[in-house]
């Protein structure tokens, strides 16, 4: 945009374009309300997915423990829904009073969808009330299946609500190209604005991320209850619940990067300069922080599993391998976190002796990073596999062959990942980008293939003893807390990245931000805001958990109770 156009737009801004919020300022207020609202929204979307799956396992597997676990999750949702709505209302008040011109623009386009959003939120809330308060009434037979259907509906409403809200924010990022600063917003067709370039990638990314987030928060809840438990039985129950939460969070986390790639690709296709700003421009350092956070997630998640193997008879066989798994994870994290495409000034370039570090430069490129992260995913999957097999010995006649085939699949997948990683150094960038698809497919094929073989091999397997649920050192539970805090912080960081790449635009290249907060802050300031949001969210979640605890005592059932007892319960995570 030329200076003339900038001046014209600035002149068009009236004095009523922006409001001011005392002490912290308008931007900080909207940032906090939007972020905390989003965190609660992710919680109330992720946990119902969790609840409906565990209820199904309870219904169709005949284990009442899962049904009670599902109810315990749902109880947490009641208060969390109110918190989501309160923070959402604060966000709307903030936008309409502090950014009235921008808000008027958005409502001119999206008003009909906003009414649908409100109606669906209403329906969703009442579905939740029916779901929770009808739990004990619709407990048997067809009524129970009907109750489970309510849980599915709860997820459907929630997902549609999220998709609608996503359309507003993705429009801000990637408005259709035929819309210009002079386009009258009332003439823009609603579906045209909704179905913008980044809408569906964000939808998919957020659905998966909500599962990760829900699992992590449930894991943190369970770890707190574990540490506060007064009896061995209660401790065993929450140990198991924490394991399930961590398992689901880590499993979904493995898929999340693929959704992220898709989103990144769409951003590049929509506007290459936006993509370059994101990956190689002023936001380039953000990805080093992201790599560090994901390394923490991988290391902590694996650490929790390895400690958990201490309570599984027969796991001693696999203990010698864990140090090698740790070596791969640490090396992978180091490579992934190596800076490369960074904005640097002349002094920094001179200090570095060139555009890249002479030794580490080669490790900072995508070939090395994709290789590292794929090997980290394979390693984490191997950790799960060892955990799963720890207290069993397969008895099928082809067990040895099956194990060899599984090992072969790992070797082939790792080989493909390494081959394309090295080959990537010798080809053009456009070819290199395509290699990441082969690497990902190799890893996914390995995960699917090995899992299928493992399930078949586990049929009638000899048990080496039951898992001693509850026999976990407290440090394992603190690991779950670190996971929850890290997931939440990562969500805040990625939100900053998504929103920040618009830079000084409310709507990319359509409506400029001419307020005094138009400059996009550096990571240092952003990190303080993210930490503050995470702290507010966690304090409120702790309050929600406490309120939930007041309403009803713990729902744990002593091991051995129900149809399956502990022996059956372990199958969820396995």
């Amino acid at each position, binding site marked *: 945009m030329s200076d003339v156009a900038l001046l014209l737009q600035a002149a068009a801004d009236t004095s009523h374009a922006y409001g001011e919020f005392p002490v912290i300022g308008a931007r900080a207020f909207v940032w906090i309300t939007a972020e905390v609202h989003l965190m609660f929204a992710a919680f109330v979307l992720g946990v119902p997915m969790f609840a409906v799956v565990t209820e199904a396992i309870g219904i169709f597997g005949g284990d009442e423990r899962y049904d009670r676990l599902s109810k315990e999750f749902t109880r947490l949702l009641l208060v969390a829904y109110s918190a989501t709505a309160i923070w959402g209302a604060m966000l709307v008040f903030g936008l309409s009073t502090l950014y009235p011109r921008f808000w008027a623009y958005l409502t001119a386009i999206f008003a009909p969808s906003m009414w649908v959003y409100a109606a669906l939120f209403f329906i969703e809330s009442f579905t939740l009330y029916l779901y929770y308060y009808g739990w004990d009434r619709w407990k048997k037979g067809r009524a129970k299946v009907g109750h489970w259907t309510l849980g599915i509906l709860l997820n459907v409403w929630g997902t549609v609500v999220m998709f609608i809200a996503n359309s507003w924010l993705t429009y801000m990022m990637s408005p259709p190209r035929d819309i210009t600063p002079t386009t009258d917003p009332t003439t823009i067709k609603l579906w045209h604005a909704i179905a913008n370039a980044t809408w569906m990638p964000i939808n998919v990314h957020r659905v998966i991320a909500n599962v990760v987030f829900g699992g992590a928060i449930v894991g943190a809840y369970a770890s707190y209850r574990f540490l506060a438990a007064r009896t061995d039985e209660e401790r065993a129950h929450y140990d198991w619940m924490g394991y399930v939460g961590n398992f689901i969070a880590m499993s979904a986390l493995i898929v999340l990067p693929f959704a992220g790639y898709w989103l990144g690709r769409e951003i590049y296709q929509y506007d290459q300069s936006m993509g370059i700003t994101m990956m190689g421009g002023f936001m380039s350092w953000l990805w080093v922080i992201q790599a560090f*956070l994901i390394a923490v997630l991988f290391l902590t998640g694996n650490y929790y599993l390895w400690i958990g193997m201490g309570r599984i008879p027969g796991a001693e066989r696999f203990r010698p391998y864990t140090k090698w798994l740790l070596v791969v994870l640490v090396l992978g994290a180091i490579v992934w976190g190596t800076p490369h495409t960074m904005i640097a000034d002349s002094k920094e370039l*001179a200090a570095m002796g060139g555009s890249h570090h002479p030794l580490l430069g080669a490790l900072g490129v995508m070939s090395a990073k994709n290789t590292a992260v794929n090997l980290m995913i394979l390693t984490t999957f191997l950790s799960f596999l060892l955990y799963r097999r720890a207290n069993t010995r397969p008895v099928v006649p082809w067990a040895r062959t099956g194990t060899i085939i599984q090992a072969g699949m790992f070797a082939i997948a790792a080989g493909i990942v390494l081959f394309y990683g090295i080959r990537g150094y010798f080809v053009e960038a456009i070819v290199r980008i395509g290699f990441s698809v082969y690497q990902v497919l190799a890893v996914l094929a390995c995960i699917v293939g090995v899992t299928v073989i493992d399930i078949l091999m586990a049929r009638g397997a000899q048990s080496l003893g039951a898992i001693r649920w509850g026999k976990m050192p407290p440090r394992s539970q603190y690991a779950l807390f670190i996971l929850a805090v890290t997931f939440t912080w990562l969500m805040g960081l990625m939100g900053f990245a998504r929103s920040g790449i618009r830079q000084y635009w409310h709507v990319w290249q359509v409506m400029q931000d001419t307020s005094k907060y*138009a400059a996009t802050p550096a990571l240092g300031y952003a990190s303080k805001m993210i930490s503050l949001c995470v702290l507010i969210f966690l304090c409120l979640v702790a309050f929600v958990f406490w309120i939930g605890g007041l309403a009803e005592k713990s729902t744990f059932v002593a091991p051995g109770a129900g149809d399956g007892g502990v022996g059956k319960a372990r199958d969820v995570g396995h």
Partner: protein
Amino acid sequence: MWVTNLKIVGVVLGTLAVYTLIANEIPQVQSEVPQTLTLGSNVTPEQLVAAGEKVFNGIGGCTTCHGLGTRAPNLLSDEKGTGPIGVRCGKREPGKSCKDYLFESLDNPTAYVVPGYQPIMPVMTKQLSPEQVWAVIAFLESQGGTVDVTGDDIAKSKPATPGGSSAGGGSFAGSSTDPKAIIQAAGCLACHKLDGQGQVIAPDLTHVGSRRTAESIRRKILDPTSSIAKGYEKLAGIMPKTFGTMMNAAQLEALVQYLAAHK
């Protein structure tokens, strides 16, 4: 239980503190809003260099490609043994001074493309004001060379820059009707490929005459959204709508006929 609660609070706060600390320890880069740069006729080389460094690292977006060693040549550090840009700029094109070469790179970046790189650089004189352009040139000259940019350079280039001319309806490439010069000045090859040169982001124009009539090409240039080539629907709207006001009628006609002849 209080001890456990305190430990949990400690773990949470400790984790947040570590992340916040790390994010504050790395280099801090803020994305600034473009500011109008005002430099008088008596501006000093030091002022120009200081202003140019800000543009280079900020609004100019130069660091996004230059300095990575992959997308574009390093400018602030050594480039394949030829030194930083201030040292090598006078030797790039025979008979062209450092200052002229740098201005050409910003005004007509496809005129000379360093071997081994693609002609992907946008026309910066369309994005930056004359003050900003000459400040960047001064800054680049200061990287190992001598700064000879003066306030006169800014004053002289003001009427000729497309940014200035576009406001009142102007022309590319000094009103030249040489279609190749127009294509270079308009930066068409930053997205289109033509006769083996340029990018493949937008449709290849090498045989555009076999797909479109002269009238269709003219309409497409004046109103890029009037028709979208099959397979490029997602890129609809990317082509600037300003070409109609940035070239004169003779230039438009020369360009249209040139492209229509590409059967």
